């Protein structure tokens, strides 16, 4: 990993219009991604976690410009992704690739593996016919598929193999950055680790940078250098992986961690069970978006949206991060949790106001 920032996401917003009535008037907006900012350095993997509907997939798609952003900016290698056109955009499309969740619907059933992996090369006019064929074979080998399968169709492959084909399709163009959108959640348990290991190997071999989107916190911890937690379109906490898992500060992160089933039957713990469901992103709650479900919500949380604070590189968006407010009760939380001191909080508040 280098210090060079490869991807810079600045105040990114993506709203979808809600239309109603005879004239399809826009009556409201789904605030799928509402003002998120983060950077990913070259060779780094950022994990993006959250539950369905939190906006993590929309964020991934907007970043690679499969969706046009409503506001904010995405800079890739210093270039503005949304403003890019012509040759510059084509270059960006090679450098940024995406792998989708479901390898059953993301591969065209009427195309052979060869044409699926080759298509990107053809679109970008890379290589002669023979060179492209060599490249397809080489890429298939890199993702652990037998190149002699080249003329087979997707239905002849298992889920894990299909996901390898999806990875090969992305890899063939020699990208620098890949968005991996739930790349293993459609796969069987015994196959998931094969794909995770493959992604880790490829990252090392080609120096790839990943945005790894998932709802599976154990896998995200395993593969990510840093992790961002999304709730209702916002990033509520972001930190280095070790710091986030050992010292979760936002109540929602704590709830997520507490919800994962333990692998130890002797230690069935009391978990923080959330009340209610995720509110609608059309009318997000006032103040802190998490307050209606937060076990520690206080008056200020209902009225005022918390600012994003940062202490030692650990970002969080919460009014209640104070010793008295949290960590009480009989919930099992990470053991060495250290909450920031009042002085640290004040300093962070001050920095955020500037």
């Amino acid at each position, binding site marked *: 990993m280098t210090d060079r920032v490869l991807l810079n996401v600045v105040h990114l917003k993506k709203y979808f219009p809600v239309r109603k009535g005879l004239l399809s008037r826009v009556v409201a907006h789904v605030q799928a991604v509402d003002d998120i900012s983060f950077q990913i350095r070259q060779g780094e993997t950022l994990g993006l976690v959250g*539950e*369905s509907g939190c906006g993590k997939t929309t964020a991934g798609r907007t970043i690679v410009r499969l969706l046009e952003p409503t506001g904010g900016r995405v800079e890739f290698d210093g270039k503005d992704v949304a403003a890019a056109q012509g040759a510059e955009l084509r270059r960006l499309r090679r450098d940024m690739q995406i792998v989708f969740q479901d390898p059953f619907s993301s591969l065209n059933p009427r195309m052979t593996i060869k044409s699926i992996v080759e298509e990107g090369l053809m679109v970008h006019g890379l290589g002669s016919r023979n060179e492209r064929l060599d490249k397809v074979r080489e890429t298939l080998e890199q993702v652990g598929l037998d190149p002699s399968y080249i003329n087979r169709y997707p239905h002849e492959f*298992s889920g*894990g*193999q299909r996901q390898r084909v999806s990875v090969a399709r992305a890899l063939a163009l020699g990208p620098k950055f890949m968005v991996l959108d739930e790349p293993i959640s459609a796969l*069987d*348990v*015994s*196959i*998931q*680790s*094969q794909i*995770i*290991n493959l992604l*880790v190997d490829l990252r090392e071999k080609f120096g790839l940078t990943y945005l790894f989107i998932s*709802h599976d*916190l*154990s*896998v995200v*911890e*395993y*593969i990510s250098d840093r992790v961002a937690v999304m709730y209702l379109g916002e990033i509520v906490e972001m930190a280095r992986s070790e710091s986030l*898992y*050992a010292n979760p500060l936002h109540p929602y992160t704590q*709830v*997520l*961690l*507490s*919800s*994962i*089933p*333990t*692998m*130890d*039957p*002797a230690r*069935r713990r009391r*978990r923080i*069970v*959330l009340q*209610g*469901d*995720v509110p609608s992103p059309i009318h997000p709650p006032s103040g802190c978006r998490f307050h209606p479900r937060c076990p520690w919500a206080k008056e200020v949380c209902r009225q005022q949206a918390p600012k994003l604070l940062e202490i030692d590189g650990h970002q969080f968006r919460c009014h209640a991060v104070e010793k008295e407010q949290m960590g009480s009760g009989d919930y099992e939380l*990470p053991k060495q949790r250290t909450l920031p001191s009042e002085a640290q909080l004040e300093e962070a508040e001050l920095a955020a106001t500037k």
Partner: protein
Amino acid sequence: MAVSDPLITIDRLKTHFFTDDGVVKAVDDVSLTIPKGKTLGLVGESGCGKSVTALSVIRLISPPGKIAGGRILMQSNGKAVDLAELSESEMRKIRGGKISMIFQEPMTSLNPVFTVGAQIMEAIQLHQDVNRAEARRRAIEMLDKVRIPVPEQRIDEYPHQFSGGMRQRAMIAMALSCNPQLLIADEPTTALDVTTQAQILELLRGLQADFGMSILIITHDLGIVAEMADDVAVMYASKVVEYAPVQELFEHPLHPYTHLLFKSRPELGKAKTEKLRTIQGMVPSPLRFPPGCKFHPRCPYQQEICRREEPELREVRPGHWARCHFAGELNYD
């Protein structure tokens, strides 16, 4: 396993599908016991036969599939009834009454054109001799028990007005409305988010304490088994390959497949320098099972005998059964 107070004893069950391509032995010689008031976890990957085992118990196997052998004994008023032998009309009294089931996708299991309440009341009136008003009262009570807020209003709403978690709660309310002795839960939380999953699992545990029913929970997630089950059976390629009380299984997995399943998941809070173990290859098709031990082509510990001879399920440690020639002899460090 010898269980002192069994509710259901599945004895050498064979459920086969007679397809044009040949006989698919989806469940082949499976014996399991579901104790009264306890939870049996049935784990395995897609196609291993875990769901077909459950569907056989509630007799929802449709042609070309059929129960080709074995017995499913249910203790009822001091007598043992063989569910595999019952006629469809006799079975209909049990299904939804003494045994009920919830499925993975609550949206597809609820009828979108009827209100949630109407569907719960239908189940109640089918099995209990009560009038509409009483059925409605009980349905509201059940919705309240599964913690649907304002149940007297929500009872008249349609499934699409419910969130995913609420739909699964409504399914649970329906399944428990006739006070069944056995609840079969087939991947009940797979379609749900982690926080909702935690809610549903907690709810099921609480309801089991209140109602005292047995639960057969089917899942691919060992974490859910650790949270819910008293006993665990691991299935692979239509057979039970390991069977033990939950703590015993997690502390001493004996079958290489179980061991590798544990090792292939990253564990929270563990160093990530270690590479994940993988299970090479893929689950074999039930039309072309390998000879000998069905796991041998994927097993890093395979020997010559594994290719030749199918191992028996045998008791390797007290109460702990495994189907492996070398169970107990392998060193898993």
